[in-house]
């Protein structure tokens, strides 16, 4: 089963994305913030990361930059969870190496479609 990591400091958002992904047949790993995600990525790669951008301890942009430095995650897709109106953030994310984005609030079906768009 393919593994997706969802990184968000909001429990409800994590659970909603996680639930949607599980319904879509994915294995889900949750992380609270960038640092937590980095810790959980030690030794085990995932097939996709979906990350929020605004988080305590380590934000999403830094996470994306760090993930891209990790050899086993260099070319794995990363989707940002963004709210509309924050175009600059989106650009920063792209520059850091994000593959794409999902707009909050998300439509579950659309989220799975977006995931399919980036996962081989």
């Amino acid at each position, binding site marked *: 089963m393919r593994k997706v990591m969802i990184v968000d*400091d*909001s*429990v*409800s*958002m994590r*659970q*909603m994305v996680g*639930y*949607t992904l599980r*319904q*879509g047949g994915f294995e889900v790993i949750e992380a609270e913030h960038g640092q937590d995600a980095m810790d959980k990525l030690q030794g085990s790669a995932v097939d996709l990361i979906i990350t*929020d951008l*605004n*988080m*305590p301890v380590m934000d999403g942009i830094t996470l994306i930059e760090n993930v*891209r430095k990790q050899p086993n995650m*260099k*070319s*794995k*897709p*990363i989707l940002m*969870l963004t*709210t*509309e*109106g924050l*175009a600059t953030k*989106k650009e920063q994310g*792209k520059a850091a*190496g*994000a*593959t*794409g*984005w999902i*707009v*909050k*609030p*998300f*439509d*579950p*079906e*659309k989220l*799975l479609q977006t995931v*399919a*768009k*980036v*996962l*081989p």
Partner: protein
Amino acid sequence: MKIDLSQFRQIFLIESEDHVASMEAGLLALRSAPDDIELLNGIFRSAHSIKGGAGSFGMTSLVRFTHSLESLLDRLRTSEMQATDLVIDILLRSVDQLRYLLSAGADAEMPLDALELNEQIDGLTPSDSALAEVAPEETRLAVLDEREIRLYTVEFRPDRNLFSSGTNPIVLLRNLAALGTVSCCHLHTEDLPLLADLDPAQCYLSWTVELASLCAEAELREVFEFVDHLAEINIQCVDPSRHPDSAPATVTGTPGTLAARPASNRSPVAAQTKSIAKKTDSNGESGSIRVAISKVDRLIDLVGELVIAHVMTAQMVESFEPSCLPKLREAVAAMERNTRELHERVMGIRMLPVGTLFQRYTRTVYDIAQVTGKQMRLEMSGEETEIDKSMLELLGDPLIHLVRNAADHGIETPEVREAAGKAEEGVISLRAFHRSGRIVIEISDDGAGIDTEKVRIKAIQRGLIGPDSELDDEQLRMLIFEPGFSTCEKISDLSGRGVGMDVVRRNVQQLHGTVALDSERGIGSTVSIELPLTLAILEGLLVRVGDRTLVLPLLSVIETVPLRNEQIVRVAEQGEVVVIREESIPLLRLSRFLGLAPETASTDRASEKAGNRRLAVIVEAGKRKIGLVVDELLGQQQVVVKSLERHLRKVDGLMGATILGDGCVAPIVDVGGLAALNLFATQPTFKVSQQHVPSALSARAV
């Protein structure tokens, strides 16, 4: 596949409550550190999370409101604006609106106050407000009216660094192919270097795909939504003559349009979740509790151990031999240990730190300071002290009243304080701690203290005491807990809301707690609320009265004395007092409370002759002592308090019942309530009943 996210609404609401509380705490802290970026970031994140979640549940007003709030906060944290007192005040008021909007449910209209605040905020952040207008607008994708097959040529020329974004071009091509039938796919390899020069992390390939599809060009372009900055994409409709307008008109493949596109999905989602949200509304939002995973894990462990102990016992019982007895004892002991721990842990689940409650009052004090022009701060200690969740909820109102009282009536204006030689800033402190198996919450202020002379005059006016009653200061102070008492000359909208200290006392008594007041003129006042640890379980003293078994809460028992006839003094009509160490304690015959055959001094004598001397259990009800007459002490044990009210109407003087080991139901006496029933027939003198014996010093002779 329909995926329903409404089940997460509850979690979102609980989480948002936390966010709102931490925003509030953050904003209050921001007053003394307006440049603290970490604080601002935290506040921003909270608003951001609320907004992100609110959209998922169709809470559109909340989304709109948090959107402008977020813009303002963003400006603060990027130092484009200063967190002045005015800004903080607006933000604090916004926090109130957030609370309202969160509680109001999905289709709530934005209240006027919120609209006003929104305008104020937008006034502070002019450019960003335009975004708010844009957001809800629907940008619809051009949909083809006629489902006709078109032929497209799609050129996809990725940049060298395409892989750095984690994009797999094969996935894109596959997604494109899924939109129609591919008639031809050219792979362009002319950029490929010699193997020696090839960097596997770079993309040297490009593709041209010919595709027959029913989809509009925008849909094709959407496949490349995420790579428009990393690739050159050309899409051509091969047979444009059949649709002269379509190609240039609908092909607005600029990143801007594409980025705005998901906004069009909002409406259907909102409508869908809205209807579901309504259903979940009725489930009641206060009924949930959050428990640390470690607590649950320990419970699961314990249940596991209990199951093992049970299996062991069951096996031994199956093939029982006398030699098994020690083992059986051991197994039963293990079960008992586990059960007791399980008991405690399950109770522990209901325990929450009082800090969550205390936190709110910082705001209360701040608001009062704003309105009255006084200077004061709230200090807290013992926030980690845990207390039963239901008690925490019931304590909210009495505490807010006491805090308001301290801030409004207790703390003086800076001028008065200065004249009295005190610091201009008054201090209200909230403390929570454990004392002999109970929880104590203290609210104290370093204000003016209670003017007992004013209290006396007021009490006489209100007819609470006669003009010539002789009461000492403590008794006078206790009068403020009487119904219909308020010493403030003018009723302010802060504390004089018609809820008096009597309500505070009543609420605390409902929680089987007591209230005490200590005050000194010019120094300040302290109100202490003493509560049992939990309402669900208590240490009980089992007593026999006639043929009934009753449970007395052990915490209120001071001592037990054999009742000798010469100790009993009859006062006036039928009231009886027992004199113990020169202290007169009113006697209450429990048989009378239970409606059993009346016992009197003569029946006492009869039973005494028969060798069954009755006993008086001296209990503490608030600050007064009463002696409960019982026939026998049966023992001491932990009892689980079960509510009677589901089965019977409320019985005054009983807090509930418990089920004893033999399956019998035993009522549990509510000592405070029993004393209030006044079954003594005559009132004991005030003086005597006010004598206070500190419970810590009392000998619980059982």
